[in-house]
């Protein structure tokens, strides 16, 4: 029972984790991305995520479908809005018969999400505001 969505409330890791435990599958890999205080010397105070929601959920579903088609279960949830230090921005989980597949596909999903899903961060750093992704 896959779950793919963008939310504007805190991500409930417990509910999402439990949804990935199935008798048919023996291995679950989960990636959680949370708001980090320091990136090298830059100190972050908060991050505002925005999205083009309908398209973002479509793009997330496309990514998930490639994994679901291989018979695994997938959860992909991204939070938007204003997030504080330590808040969870993204939760990606893959349940698979074999653990190597779970790891491989979970990593592929987060790597791909960062490339194709229309979500943007506005990072409030101590020295200035930074827009994610821009060169």
């Amino acid at each position, binding site marked *: 029972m896959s779950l793919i969505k963008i939310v504007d409330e805190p991500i409930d890791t417990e509910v999402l984790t439990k949804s990935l435990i199935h008798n048919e599958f023996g291995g679950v890999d989960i990636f959680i991305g949370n708001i980090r205080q320091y990136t090298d010397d830059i100190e972050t105070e908060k991050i505002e995520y925005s999205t*083009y929601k309908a398209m973002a959920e479509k793009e997330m579903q496309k990514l998930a479908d490639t994994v679901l088609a291989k018979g695994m279960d997938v959860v992909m949830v991204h939070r938007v809005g204003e997030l504080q230090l330590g808040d969870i921005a993204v939760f990606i989980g893959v349940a698979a018969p074999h653990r190597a597949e779970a790891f491989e596909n979970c990593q592929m999903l987060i790597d791909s999400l*960062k490339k194709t899903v*229309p*979500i*943007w961060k506005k990072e409030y750093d101590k020295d200035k505001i930074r*827009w994610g*992704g821009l060169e």
Partner: protein
Amino acid sequence: MKVKLFSVLAEKIGPTIELDLPQVFKSSEVLDQIKEKHPDYADVLNQSLVAVNEEYTNEEDISLDSVDEIAIIPPVSGG
């Protein structure tokens, strides 16, 4: 045609921008029209993609009749 803007473009220019698009066009023409109106954001626009009906476009011809929604997608940075 109202074009949706996001991220830094939405904050600086507004959530949408009205463009006058021909019957058949390419995504680059959409970006070019916005650059003309807002040359300050040429740099962001040069890094952006165009989505039509919630799908990324490349260099194909786009027929205005088939367009329900156009959006400018600056480099994404989720995760």
